[in-house]
């Protein structure tokens, strides 16, 4: 037999009252919430290599995506609808990414498609996305030929492509009086499809060789090496024997770090040493080179002091995650989502053709700068040249973004 004592009854009564108040409040909040929660979400889909070779940058991309998603839904979503992101793990493998993009497009029927990280994986999914008549919003990779072949249907957020990787450096040097410029250039280029374009440009335009010619800096050593090269001492000794006072390392992070270390150990002290084949100086491994990192030039898309929307906050959260320099991929990953946000709200549609027309006709304010799109789908060129000075990166070009004067001559 169940009995109730008065104390217990009072407690239950209070609990019932509290539950009633809570339920009432919940109803009130639900009624006051924007219509966002009641409509079908807009779905943005893509893949990232959350495991495998590209796990580290991909995890950072995911962090950036989650952050943007939270922000945009707090603001009421897009077109009055909540936004949902479906990001599958492509295991850093092109074939896995291909099947996942088929799933995103055929089964999940996502509204907007975003690209995976790196040209290696991204290049493989482009034909799938294009065959479904979708735009590919690409904050994941560069590749001027891929953009051109798809006639503006890939919308990028990297503000410079391979032929322009060394452009900022030569622009800075051209600003110097002729007698202060380096006189003897050595170029080391990894033989991969990406960096050979950084060296030679495309269709006679861009590329380190053309920029050097325009700047009147003769090339005294022009060496290419297989991607499997393990030792660069011999190459560095050649540059030393040729009295090179400017060295361009056009490679990927592993070989560039190797070259930087050899340059320092061999006592080669060029006026300019640029790691212009990748954004290696923004990676966490660069400062770990110690003295060998000092004076090295590199490039990125924008810098927190430029005041672009969301950039300073992004830099702050990444600093809290242990990054002294905001990685380039984090900036472009965030910027492409800002483009999507502004394009969908501006065009007021998810129709891909209308979105494409709107994007090619308008400006977009992003963390990577204010974008105006070219016919091939890449933003108009902009670049930041940074130099590693006293243990940290400083902006040395363009002048309006400078945080320090360039120092010519490795310590």
């Amino acid at each position, binding site marked *: 037999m169940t009995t109730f004592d008065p104390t217990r009854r009072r407690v239950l009564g209070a609990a019932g009252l509290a539950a009633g108040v809570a339920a009432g409040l919940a109803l009130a909040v639900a009624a006051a919430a924007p219509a966002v929660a009641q409509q079908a979400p807009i779905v943005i889909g893509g893949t990232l290599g959350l495991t495998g070779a590209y796990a580290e940058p991909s995890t950072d991309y995911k962090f950036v995506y989650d952050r943007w998603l939270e922000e945009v839904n707090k603001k009421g979503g897009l077109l009055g609808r909540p936004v949902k992101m479906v990001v599958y793990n492509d295991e850093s493998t092109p074939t896995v990414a291909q099947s996942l993009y088929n799933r995103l497009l055929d089964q999940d029927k996502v509204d907007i498609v975003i690209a995976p990280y790196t040209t290696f994986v991204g290049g493989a999914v482009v034909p799938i996305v294009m065959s479904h008549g979708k735009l590919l919003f690409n904050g994941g990779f560069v590749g001027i030929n891929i953009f051109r072949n798809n006639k503006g249907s890939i919308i990028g957020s990297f503000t410079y492509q391979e032929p322009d990787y060394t452009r900022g450096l030569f622009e800075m040097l051209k600003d110097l009086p002729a007698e202060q410029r380096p006189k003897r250039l050595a170029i080391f280029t990894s033989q991969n499809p990406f960096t050979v374009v950084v060296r030679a440009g495309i269709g006679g335009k861009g590329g380190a060789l053309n920029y050097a010619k325009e700047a009147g800096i003769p090339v005294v050593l022009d060496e*290419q090496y297989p991607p499997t090269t393990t030792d660069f001492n*011999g190459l560095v000794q*050649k540059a030393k024997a040729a009295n090179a006072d400017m060295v361009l390392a056009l490679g990927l992070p592993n070989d560039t770090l190797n070259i930087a270390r050899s340059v320092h150990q061999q006592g080669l002290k060029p006026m300019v040493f640029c790691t212009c084949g990748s954004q290696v100086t923004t990676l966490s491994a660069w400062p770990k080179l110690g003295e060998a990192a000092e004076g090295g030039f590199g490039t990125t898309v924008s810098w927190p002091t430029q005041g672009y929307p969301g950039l300073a906050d992004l830099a702050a959260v990444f600093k809290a995650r242990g990054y002294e320099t905001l990685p380039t991929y984090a900036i472009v990953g965030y910027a492409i989502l800002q483009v999507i946000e502004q394009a969908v709200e501006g065009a007021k549609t998810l129709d891909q053709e209308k979105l494409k027309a709107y994007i090619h006709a308008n400006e977009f304010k992003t963390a990577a700068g204010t974008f105006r799109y070219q016919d091939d789908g890449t933003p108009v060129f902009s670049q930041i040249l940074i130099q590693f000075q006293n243990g940290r990166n400083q902006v040395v070009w363009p002048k309006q973004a400078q945080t320090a004067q360039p120092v010519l001559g490795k310590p």
Partner: protein
Amino acid sequence: MLTHVLSIVADGVLLGLIYAITGLGLSLVLGVMGIVNVAHSAFVMLGSFLAFELFRRFGVDPVVAFVLALPVFFVLGIVVYRVVITRVQSAAQTQGLVAMFGLMVLIENLGTIAWTTDTRVVTASYTNASLVLGGVVLPHVRLIAGGLALLLIGGVWAFLRFTLTGRAIRAMGQNPEAARIVGVDIARLSAVMFGLGIACAGAAGVALAMVFPFSPNTQVVWLAWAFLVVILGGLGSVASTLAAGIAVGLIQSVCTAVMPFDTVYLVLYVLLAVILTVRREGLSRAVRRTI
């Protein structure tokens, strides 16, 4: 001019010592046990990350890590021998090769999961310093790595030459059946031999991490160099492995100085093909005789 020539020679010799230590374990395991250990580079990679983690977490100098790697990887080698090798030893050689290939893929994938493919560097207090002798620049780190390589190669040579276990291993390498008849415990010595090979691989990984940037998927490049040294040096010979390593280093260094770099590897392989055509057994006197 003389300084330039001396620089090329010094660079070649120091690089060659690194090549030699990278090929040493592979040569011993192949020469004595007849096992084509294609997982060798995976253990080299693990050695590099042992140095990296000890340095990053506890500030342990890579020289100390080199010493620590020897017992750690010796034990690891024995475990791998007991778990993997004993199961495929009696099978056809192709099955053993496939098993070792599978082991390599497994270790490299686990390495990628643990450390991703981001490039890592180990920068000790001496990494960025160099000794300049008469204009010849000798990076401290290469001198130290070369010295450690010489010590290890010398130690392995002395172990195989002057200890009872070493002599038994040599006997096993020359004629396993005869060795068994005179009382050599083949199973135990095989485990020791494999452990020694993996210990050399781990130590080589530490030496490589001192000198070069690395990631889980770059160390496989060193497998090609290790095989090159083994092919040139012949199987199972410590002294020939050393000579072959230095020869490869010198050829690379001289070729780099006198021709475009993108042709250096091609020339290196053509030269090796010519050498092996003339002298099939490489630098050692017999295909599988000496240790």
